[in-house]
């Protein structure tokens, strides 16, 4: 099978769906790049991270739409277009910027269907990069998928590898509900086997990236490779760790998580989104209710501290959950009582 990077896998999904469906349009800042520049009609960026590279050349300015720096108009326009017959993919370059345009997701796109009594369809995808690790500092390093997951009416995707990224994005584009697709900037360079051609991965189906009996680790996005690495290392010690990657936080594969915990009785949840009111806490609450009688140890969460993301590399490294902290949490739940 061909190898592709996470970035290329996402690009491939976008291209395939635009070829398949003329109503799919890409909207954002510098998704082409170069509009109105002195170099003339070029594709200057294809997205600041190159995720949309080549799309403008293939599909032109009518379907790959560069915009002013106006996120509320970007997301709102995409939502309005989605309600009226297009399948827009709006980019919020860094998901941290949702603060300037949240209403169009939170009070608008997410609620149309319910508020309007089931009449509206809003096949909207909002995609963007998230996460710490590149010293992008406090306003360009956040992973706010906890915020999106809290909003009824939104679906939220947090792919952890190239294969999932492609299949989940194609599902997102074909989905008739608004989807927030969260790309972790630390993963863009990660490569893996990605088939040519279109394929879909259903939402709400967790992927067991490692199977094991002693402890369950539920991890999201860039935390999955870290959890996998710890699992592989501990296996040598005879500790068998099951790593569950839910892949979508809404819908969430509750059964997939609860089954694993039922078997291991011990769980660690690794989540970059927040130290308070994050996805880790949402999953911990689920387990503390539905799997309580299976639990043999406290439910441990591994998250960043309750601080903004610091700029300086040593601080940022200490901020982001790492293999050492994941391993320590696993040992803690294994040795408890």
């Amino acid at each position, binding site marked *: 099978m061909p190898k592709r990077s996470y970035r290329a896998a996402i690009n491939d999904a976008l291209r395939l769906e635009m070829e398949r469906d003329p109503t799919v*349009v890409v909207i954002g800042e510098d998704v082409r790049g170069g509009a109105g520049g002195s170099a003339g009609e070029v594709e200057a960026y294809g997205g600041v991270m190159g995720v949309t590279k080549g799309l403008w050349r293939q599909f032109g300015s009518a379907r790959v739409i560069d915009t002013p720096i106006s996120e509320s108009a970007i997301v709102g*326009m995409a939502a309005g277009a989605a309600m009226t017959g*297009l399948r827009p993919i709006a980019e919020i370059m860094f998901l941290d910027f949702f603060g300037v345009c949240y209403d169009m997701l939170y009070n608008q796109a997410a609620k149309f269907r319910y508020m309007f*009594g089931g009449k509206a369809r809003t096949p909207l995808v909002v995609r963007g990069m998230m996460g710490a690790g590149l010293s992008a500092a406090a306003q360009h390093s956040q992973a706010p998928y906890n915020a999106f997951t809290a909003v009824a*009416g939104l679906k939220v995707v947090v792919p952890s590898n190239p294969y999932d990224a492609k299949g989940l994005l194609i599902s997102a584009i074909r989905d008739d509900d608004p989807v927030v697709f969260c790309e972790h900037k630390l993963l863009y360079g990660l490569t893996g086997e990605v088939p040519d051609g279109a394929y879909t991965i259903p939402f709400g189906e967790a992927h067991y990236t490692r199977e094991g009996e002693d402890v369950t680790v539920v991890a999201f996005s860039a935390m999955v490779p870290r959890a996998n690495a710890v699992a592989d290392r501990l296996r040598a010690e005879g500790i068998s760790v099951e790593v569950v990657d839910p892949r979508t936080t809404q819908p969430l594969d509750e059964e997939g998580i609860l089954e694993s915990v039922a078997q291991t009785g011990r769980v660690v949840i690794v989540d970059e989104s927040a130290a308070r009111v994050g996805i880790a806490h949402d999953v911990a609450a689920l387990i503390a209710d539905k799997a309580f009688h299976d639990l043999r140890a406290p439910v441990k969460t591994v998250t960043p501290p309750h601080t903004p993301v610091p700029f300086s590399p040593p601080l940022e490294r200490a901020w982001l959950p790492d293999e050492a902290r994941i391993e320590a949490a696993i040992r803690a739940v294994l040795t408890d009582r």
Partner: protein
Amino acid sequence: MPDGMVRPTAIAGSLDAPALERAYRRMVLIRAFEERLHAENTTGDIPGFVHLYAGQEAIAVGVCEHLTDRDHIGSTHRGHGHCIAKGCDLTGMMAEIFGRATGLCGGKGGSMHIADLERGMLGANAIVGGAAPLATGAALTHKTRGSGGVAVAFIGDGGSNQGMVFEAMNMAVVLELPAIFVFENNGYGEGTGADYAVGARSIAERAAGFGMPAVRVDGTDFFAVYAAAGAAVARARGGGGPSTIEAVALRYYGHYEGDPMAYRATDEVATLRARSDPLAKLRAALLALPTGAAAGAARLDAIERECAAEVDAAVRAARAAPFPALETLERDVYVAL
């Protein structure tokens, strides 16, 4: 007529007597609907907030008479007039306002969220200014599809100061979208005067600075609104891009039903009703038409009776309708989960 307004250009024959009569019927129907709600509201049977459109009828009708079901409008929290002008089902509207299962939104939306997508009515919106980015999106759909359709955003004078409205105006100019921004200047945003909250000399002048045609018209003069809207719609359909219309027409009731209106001179509304009632003005114009060309007073009185009867039937139907069944509570959040 307030200063600096363009005087109605001669209505290029586009309005024959039947068309004028139809417009009059729509305006009368809106007035009857709102006056009746004003009365019904005192019974305490209408849940939540109700914002009445009485006094502004010529704006919604003057604009929407240029539109067909394929065209879209985005509305405000004061949306009943827009709904009726765009042809929404009156019975469904009334039932929705009463929170009944037979409402246009099955009782889930209420007065502030009435929508009728088949009629191109994208929803009343309780977020001030919310219609602007959404209608811009509908305009993008029309442009992308080459449908020749247009999208209109209705925004209040208060809403004209909301950031996303400015973003949407610039976006529409940059992308040359068939969008029309109709600012309904009814003098107040809640209890705050438009002259205070809008720092510019006028909303139209500020919009003109964005690089689109912008006119200010007397919103109580059907012909003035109709002429301005005709020019804007023709321009949009012809690929000429967006326009702005500021239409000035003070409301007859409080911001919401129950508003003591302490911010208004005691005789303000009485004077408005006496001197600049949009219905009276249009009625006078109709009666001034060469006899035979149009309906006489008797016919117009009949229209008024018919509208009152239609509204009365809608109220009876709404009151007789059941409340939504509890099984619907968790339905229609997603198209599919």
